[in-house]
């Protein structure tokens, strides 16, 4: 009888990684609030409000990139529909924030301003639960999750793969964008939602509220990182990677890829939805532009720049690309698209494993 050597499950994180993780936790959970709120504005250690807003925004994007990595990097399915899930989460949050405005809008009505403008008398049915925060939290998970589940079920069941899948997710996002642009659908048309005033009856534009959202976002990001790490290390994650590398062989080995793909697809969509819900109160606006094809493809490039199938890579990638974006769009706005385009080409041609892959390779050569 031969001994079958099963791989020993790797620990969730190594010793060094755990300490880095703790460091990150302390940085965002303690240092950032202290430097932003307690250190006076003139000091060299002061973290500006602009910095908090920017990093908070990029962390939302990083969650998207992480979600993209799970579905693309580990399962080999390139989704061009993650912008939709992001926007869906954002819209659910936006509806709640619109209700929180109460009678403080321009028209002093119970209804959101744009509905008064359209001469509507009552809230449409899909706004029913928008005044409850608990219901909103549930819907932030349920709406993108359900859309992804239904779409994924039919797509994976008929074994749509590769580029076909990418293109129909793009079509889905495009159709949704057209729908949200309509005034009749009750999502504020092309202006979307903005002018938020409060969240949980607390004013939204105060420094402490901004900091709270920032800390929440960073904790979510770190939490999702651990979750993703656990997922890909588990047996479930190994099957996903097997599907990525040789789906036909996985099927011949007696696995049905459908539940695996569907689960990771739905999880990924929910992560994006939560990122969207955290994004909207921080930037103060959500409109159908978030569903444009460009946004979804950009999520993929964050993951590709950082390095696919590395988990830490996409987070790094989101920071690199968006950091460059906010710097370049201020200093040389006309060059931003050249830079982004060159990044798309350069990364796919020369950095198939992204920045993280490059660093690993350099380290390997050094030893």
């Amino acid at each position: 009888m031969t001994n079958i050597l099963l791989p020993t499950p790797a620990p969730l994180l190594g010793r060094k990684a755990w300490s880095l993780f703790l460091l990150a936790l302390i940085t965002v959970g303690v240092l950032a609030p202290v430097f932003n709120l307690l250190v006076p504005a003139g000091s060299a250690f002061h973290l500006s409000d602009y910095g908090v807003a920017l990093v908070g925004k990029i962390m939302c994007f990083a969650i998207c990139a992480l979600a993209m990595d799970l579905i693309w990097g580990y399962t080999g399915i390139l989704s061009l529909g993650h912008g939709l899930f992001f926007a869906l989460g954002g819209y659910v949050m936006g509806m709640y924030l619109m209700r929180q405005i109460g009678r403080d809008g321009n028209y002093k009505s119970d209804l959101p301003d744009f509905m008064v403008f359209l001469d509507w008398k009552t809230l449409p049915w899909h706004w029913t639960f928008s005044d409850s925060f608990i219901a909103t939290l549930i819907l932030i998970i349920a709406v993108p999750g359900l859309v992804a589940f239904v779409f994924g079920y039919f797509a994976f069941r008929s074994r749509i793969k590769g580029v076909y899948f990418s293109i129909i997710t793009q079509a889905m996002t495009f159709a949704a964008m057209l729908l949200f642009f309509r005034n009749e659908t009750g999502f504020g048309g092309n202006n979307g939602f903005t002018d938020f005033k409060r969240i949980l009856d607390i004013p939204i534009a105060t420094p402490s509220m901004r900091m709270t959202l920032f800390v929440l976002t960073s904790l979510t990001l770190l939490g999702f990182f651990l979750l993703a790490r656990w997922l890909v290390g588990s047996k479930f994650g190994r099957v996903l990677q097997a599907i990525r590398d040789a789906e036909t062989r996985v099927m011949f080995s007696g696995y049905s890829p459908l539940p695996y793909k569907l689960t990771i697809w739905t999880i990924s969509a929910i992560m994006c939805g939560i990122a969207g819900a955290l994004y909207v109160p921080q930037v103060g606006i959500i409109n159908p532009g978030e569903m444009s094809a460009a946004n979804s493809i950009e999520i993929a490039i964050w993951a590709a720049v950082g390095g696919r199938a590395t988990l830490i890579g996409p987070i790094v990638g989101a920071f690199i690309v968006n950091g460059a974006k906010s710097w370049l769009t201020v200093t040389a706005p006309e060059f931003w698209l050249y830079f982004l385009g060159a990044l798309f080409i350069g990364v796919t041609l020369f950095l198939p494993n992204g920045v993280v892959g490059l660093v690993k390779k350099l380290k390997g050569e050094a030893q």
Partner: protein
Amino acid sequence: MHRHRFIKLFMALCAGLCLAAGPAHALTAAEATAIATGETDVRIEALNKAMATADDKTAAFIQAMADGEVKVAGDKVFVVKDDKGLDPVSGAAVAVPGGAEDLVNNNRMRGALDNALAALKLFSKDDKLRLEGVKALLKEPDEARLPLVEKALAAEASPAIKAQLELARAAALLGSADKARRLEAARALGQNKTPETKLLLNERLKIETEADVKGQLQASLQAIEAALVWGDKLGALFSGISLGSILLLVALGLAITYGLMGVINMAHGELMMIGAYATYVVQGLFQKYLPGAFDWYLLAAVPVAFAASALVGAALERSVIRFLYGRPLETLLATWGISLMLMQGVRTLFGAQNVGVETPRWMSGGVQVLSNLTLPYNRLVIIGFAAAVLLGMAFLIGKTRLGLFVRGVTQNRPIASCMGVNTARIDTYAFALGSGIAGLAGCALSQVGNVGPDLGQSYIVDSFMVVVLGGVGQLAGTVYAAMGLGILNKLLEGWTGAVLAKIAVLVFIIIFIQKRPQGIFAMKGRSAEA
């Protein structure tokens, strides 16, 4: 013959009416005074009366009044032009008394004057002006204008304007106080099966009180609607085919680069944009150096657009895409990057605003097939152009040596290579060909839509839908898918509106791909799992 006699009879009747209404001669001093002085109501009545017997002098006088060139002294009226007094009746120069005052017209009077001027256009020598006059009358039918219309009708030679005049006459009669005349007009209008008549009858139906006139109005309306239904249906079908031909042009290039070569070319839209901008540049060159031949600039633009896009395509293939064969998802991202750079490049060169591409004169206008169905020339040209490009491409792929090589490389690269085919070069040629066809599509699009840096973005989803729906590597499938989607889209638009139709079509494609992941025409055999 009957018709002639009828008209003669009517003329006689009309002349009689005119006699009863006033002396049958040209403008008189008394008329001029009546129009120019007194209460507005009386003036308008006098104006209408004078209109019935209007001649050149009347027209000149009314024009002068509308232009504010008339002065009044007591009961004498003068036209004052360049500080010289003229007698409105004789046209002779007269001295204007010192106390003459400017004639004042209030808004109502001015409206009546404008209306009268429009009516007088009916007697202009210029066909265009006459048509304008009839159109203006049709907008505000007035029974008082009837004698004038009759007169114009007798003198009119152009059949098109004559038809409009008949319509104007019936429209004027429709407002008559006499029930019998209204009834007759309602019946006569039923013969004229145009959307304008339908509008006219509907308006009258709203205010009509007499039951039998109402019945006749409804009967006429029904007859017109029955006749118009066909025009509407054919119109929807035509716009569907027109949209389908545009989709076909847009997707044909992609059918090569994606369908045959497997390159997910997200920059396809930008290659079309380059074709459109090439057309713009050629237009500019013609305007500058060959203004005489400007109407034919499109003929020169077609090869230029092809060459420009094909060159860019070849450069892209050599520099980027050839490293990515067999890695479709990476190709997608890289070509997306290319599209961003091309878009920004065009913004840097031509500015972020849309540029104006003029349609040549011979392409404006259209053929009128039915009263409510006009086929615009530019759409017809594009349908023809799409068919020509399709045939050219089918010939190139199916009958030439290059086509044979392209098919060979697609089907089995190593064997084609063993047979001595330079596969790398064939890839470049094929990609350049697909890009060039995108350029042709861009040239066609410049004639029907805006030309701007975002031109390609709006078509990229559509073009992929067509190719995917048609089945990869299938020219026939692409044709069916483009035409099917175009017609489906336009038919749905009829009862759901443009945006919902678009969404419905996208949902339809998503569902369709679930059922037939390989498109309408699935590849069979070995290449199916490629």
